[in-house]
């Protein structure tokens, strides 16, 4: 059977939804791409028992090289750099052609660089283009959050960071709250760091699968805060994030108007002017362009810009 070769990973691609899948469960990983999430995250860490770490890697290698995941990005969560497992995890990820590696419990830039060095060595060992494999960091502790900017800028391979609520709440001695009060400061600090570093920022997963109302409330919150996407644990969580992150027809129409008029105004030598009763200047123009770009990526733009 022909080995699957995945296209070169794109650091800035859409990552609205990143769904966890246990790399050790064949029944799950073979169907992962049909759900329509932007990225899947095959897990070698917490989902895999300590005595099955080896078996999970064999499954992962064959899944990566024989299952065609199409446009779905394939990220692998490796074991922590404080374990004896992560180096072999890196080897199998690179050899199998994973798009990226998620570093769990990341607290320092040095950890990122340690993984990067192992990734580069593996790329050379397996004849993979050096620099192909992307990295992202899961921030799961107060120290990780405090060091978020250094972590996000520790390597050119960094696509972004994600907060992991479970471990974070444990280290803060708090439980999950409906309004997110226990974790919102960390979310905001991580967002600032990620934006400052120019990388993407993903929210934690929502564990209460049957609480639809609570889930929607959390998605609404993180969309308004400015997150690029969210970690998920179930396919039924995908649709609402995609719906909330897609620009609305009203936003798109307004953005089109701004982009068009701004081009005309700039040609006429005007910097600030009014569209639909609202002041418009260069920052609005940039935002309007971003909305159009996002609408295109989300498949909801049908104009000609």
């Amino acid at each position: 059977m022909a080995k699957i070769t995945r296209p070169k990973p794109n650091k800035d691609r859409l990552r609205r939804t990143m769904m966890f899948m246990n790399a050790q469960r064949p029944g799950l990983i073979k169907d992962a791409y049909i759900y329509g999430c932007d990225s899947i995250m095959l897990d070698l860490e917490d989902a895999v028992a300590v005595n099955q770490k080896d078996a999970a890697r064999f499954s992962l290698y064959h899944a990566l090289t024989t299952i065609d995941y199409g446009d779905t990005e394939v990220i692998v969560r490796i074991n922590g750099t404080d374990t004896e497992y992560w180096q072999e995890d890196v080897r199998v990820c690179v050899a199998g052609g994973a798009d990226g590696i998620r570093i769990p419990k990341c607290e320092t830039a040095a950890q990122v660089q340690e993984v990067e060095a192992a990734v580069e060595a593996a790329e050379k060992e397996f004849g993979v283009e050096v620099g192909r494999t992307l990295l992202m960091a899961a921030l799961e502790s107060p120290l990780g959050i405090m060091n978020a900017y250094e972590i996000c800028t520790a390597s050119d391979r960094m696509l972004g960071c994600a907060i992991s609520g479970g471990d974070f709440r444990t280290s803060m001695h708090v439980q999950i709250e409906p309004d997110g009060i226990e974790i919102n400061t960390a979310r905001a600090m991580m967002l600032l760091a990620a934006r400052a570093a120019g990388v993407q920022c993903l929210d934690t997963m929502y564990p209460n699968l049957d609480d639809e109302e609570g889930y929607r409330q959390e998605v609404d919150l993180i969309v308004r805060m400015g997150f690029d996407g969210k970690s998920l644990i179930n396919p039924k969580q995908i649709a609402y994030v995609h719906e909330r992150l897609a620009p609305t027809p009203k936003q798109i129409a307004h953005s089109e108007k701004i982009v068009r008029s701004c081009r005309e105004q700039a040609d006429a030598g005007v910097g600030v002017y009014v569209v639909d009763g609202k002041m418009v200047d260069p920052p609005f123009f940039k935002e309007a362009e971003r909305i159009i770009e996002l609408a295109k990526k989300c498949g909801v733009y049908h104009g000609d810009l």
Partner: protein
Amino acid sequence: MVIEKTAMAGTLESSDAQVTVSPADALEIVIESSVINQYGRQIKATVEETLDRLGVTTGLVSVVDKGALDCTLKARVECAVFRSCDASMSNIPWGGAIQ
């Protein structure tokens, strides 16, 4: 590789296969599957090819198949063989004997 001791990999969950290997003088493959009539030959061929790539020429290899895809079957056979040699945890020849 030579199967040095009894080792097992995989589960009896749906879409999985449980593979047990143990030392023996000759190579013997025993397959139990709910889909043996349709896929028995293909399962055997996959197991044989995988053992061949690993250079396993002797041993008793028993497979309890629960509707595993080829890629899962390969992974379970390989893991069982590497476990039987206490070599499953690091420096796996990804893309070499494993492909």
